[in-house]
């Protein structure tokens, strides 16, 4: 197995412009989707919490473009980007955010619980680190069934301080399961600098101590994320067992869309803004010869698409309230019935 070593800056004129222009499209689509999701709060179209992944789009794009539709993905409360990149329908997702009919989960899940099993997206999750053991189990089932598919499980830097991180990684290695764990490290756990709450050398060292090959990469460099994901998935397919990636990125917004994030160092924010993954990819593509028009098109098409998605979702009806009683369980009547 050859290990691909690649970075945005190192690629230069050799950058695979076809591949990465498509990634740029994905990243802009995510950015546009989320900016509109945030805007929707002002219009009171979303009444619950929105956790934007603005600034982290390279992880979603660089990982998911290496997955087959049949491969399985699990994400977190901050999962819009991963879900879009995995191929979920943006309109159904926006409808879900707005709690409307035709939403990915029929309006029952909302932002933190988007799942689209048709494209192998097994769910965002509102409980930090809970997706790790579920991912191990999904991979366990694939192995039992003798399938070639793989599972990718993305979680935040805060998740590595919860027990399921240890239990899930240990499990995956003990049972030799086809799963790639990705710690998408955006420096924060809600309003806390994760580093202050994390002992030892960090995510990759913890994974290694559990027997998983682990690599730490620049998560704002989509070329690096792409290469590392390809390497890891190749190792998985070659039977080398579960793999681990630690992607270092930065959350450009607050924890939720309404969090002003005043606890951050402005200099740090500026530093990271200069490393915006979309801007950096654009630069690299420009250097590699992609036209200004094409680059601009990536952006404008994404916003145009999402504006339309937004408008359509907004004009969609509420789901039928009877749905509140459906898909609970087949056994037993959830309705409260008066006896009088």
């Amino acid at each position, binding site marked *: 197995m050859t290990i691909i070593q690649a970075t945005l800056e190192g690629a230069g004129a050799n950058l695979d412009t076809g591949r990465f222009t498509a990634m740029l499209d994905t990243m802009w689509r995510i950015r546009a989707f989320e900016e509109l999701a945030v805007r929707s709060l002002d219009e009171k179209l979303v009444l619950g919490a929105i956790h934007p992944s603005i600034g982290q789009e390279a992880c979603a794009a660089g990982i998911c473009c290496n997955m087959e539709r049949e491969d399985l993905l699990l994400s977190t409360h901050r999962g819009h980007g991963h879900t879009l990149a995995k191929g979920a329908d943006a309109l159904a997702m926006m409808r879900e955010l707005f709690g409307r009919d035709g939403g990915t989960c029929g309006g029952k899940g909302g932002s933190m619980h988007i799942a689209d099993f048709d494209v192998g997206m097994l769910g965002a999750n509102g409980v930090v680190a809970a997706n790790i053991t579920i991912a191990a189990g999904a991979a366990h089932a694939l192995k039992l069934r003798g399938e070639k598919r793989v599972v990718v499980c993305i979680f935040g830097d805060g998740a590595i301080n919860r027990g399921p991180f240890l239990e899930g990684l240990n499990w995956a290695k*003990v049972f030799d399961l086809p799963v790639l764990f990705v710690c998408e490290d955006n420096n924060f756990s809600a309003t806390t600098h994760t580093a202050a709450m994390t002992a030892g050398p960090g995510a990759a060292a913890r994974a290694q101590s559990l027997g998983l090959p682990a690599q730490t990469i620049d998560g704002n460099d989509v070329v690096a994320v792409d290469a590392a994901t390809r390497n890891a998935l190749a190792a998985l397919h070659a039977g080398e067992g579960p793999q681990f990636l630690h992607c270092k990125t930065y959350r450009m917004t607050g924890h939720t869309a309404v969090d002003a994030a005043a606890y951050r160092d402005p200099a740090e924010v500026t530093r990271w803004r200069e490393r915006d993954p979309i801007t950096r990819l654009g630069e690299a593509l420009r250097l590699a010869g992609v036209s200004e028009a094409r680059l601009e098109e990536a952006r404008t098409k994404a916003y145009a698409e999402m504006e339309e998605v937004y408008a359509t979702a907004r004009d969609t009806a509420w789901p039928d309230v009877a749905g509140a009683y459906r898909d609970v369980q087949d056994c037993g009547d959830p309705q409260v019935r008066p006896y009088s």
Partner: protein
Amino acid sequence: MSVISYLEAGKRAVREEMQRDPTVWALGEDLGRGGVFGQYKGLIDEFGPERIADTPISEACIMGAAVGAAMTGTRPIVEMRFSDFALCAIDELVNQAAKARFMFGGQMRVPMVVREPTGMWRSSAAQHSQSLESWYTHIPGLVVVAPATPADNLGLLKSAIRNDDPVVYLEHKNLWPLEGEVPEGEHLVPLGEAQIVRTGRDLTLVTWSATRHSCVAAADALEKQGIEAEVIDLRTLWPWDRDRVLASVEKTGRLIVAHEAVAVSGFGAEIAATVAEALHHRLKAPVQRLGAPRIPIAYAPPLEDEARVTEKKIIDAAKALCLPVAAS
């Protein structure tokens, strides 16, 4: 008919369902050596270590992995060893297994059975003796089963494994050696159907799990004293067989619910409240509950016994209810 133990019945259910459906598998600590009570003994020889899977001591991951595996085309049987340790995996059970189908808009199902050996087992003390069935009945998305006989353990466990939603399956540790008749061939007991163990016209005794046997013994004793108690074993706690219970109390006019768990907010409260609401005007006496006092289970036998709902307590309560004058 053949006579087998409650433990053997559970094992037979697992074996038959694993033979029938190759996607069924079991996971838990020590299963390869038969599990802590021997409920899986020998199954590894027939099905191999992949389908009778030994796991690390990682309850949260056992449960969480089962959720993922159930979403991905398999039907896991989760072994929790003691129901007390399921508390290490409650997030996975309640926030994940029970809600996934609903939360994700019915895109998939989570067909898994969580076996949780439950209840008092001599001198096991506070962390190995709990009965928490009422918790599970409170959680939308969960089916809750508590068999009391070998035949029911066979027939209900098979039904539970075939069920497409998560089932919390509570076997009572004290019942493992209990022997009883089970039918030859395929034996399925439908979920949600209570069993009228004994008919009677004076009093309805609603119960489940090990306490069923105390109720039957009490009913036998009461009969000699002229009180005919109808004993209903709910078997499935959610959904519970309201129709059968209400029909019985309509007939008898008196209800005692007896269970091993703490009485306060025990599942007996749900039944008593439902009956009181539905049949207030038909009741000849107030509904009554028997359960443990609100104390942890102690280790020393005499202290442990304080928490027990005994045959005697059931008899006393029944007599007080049926013969108020004589009892006072």
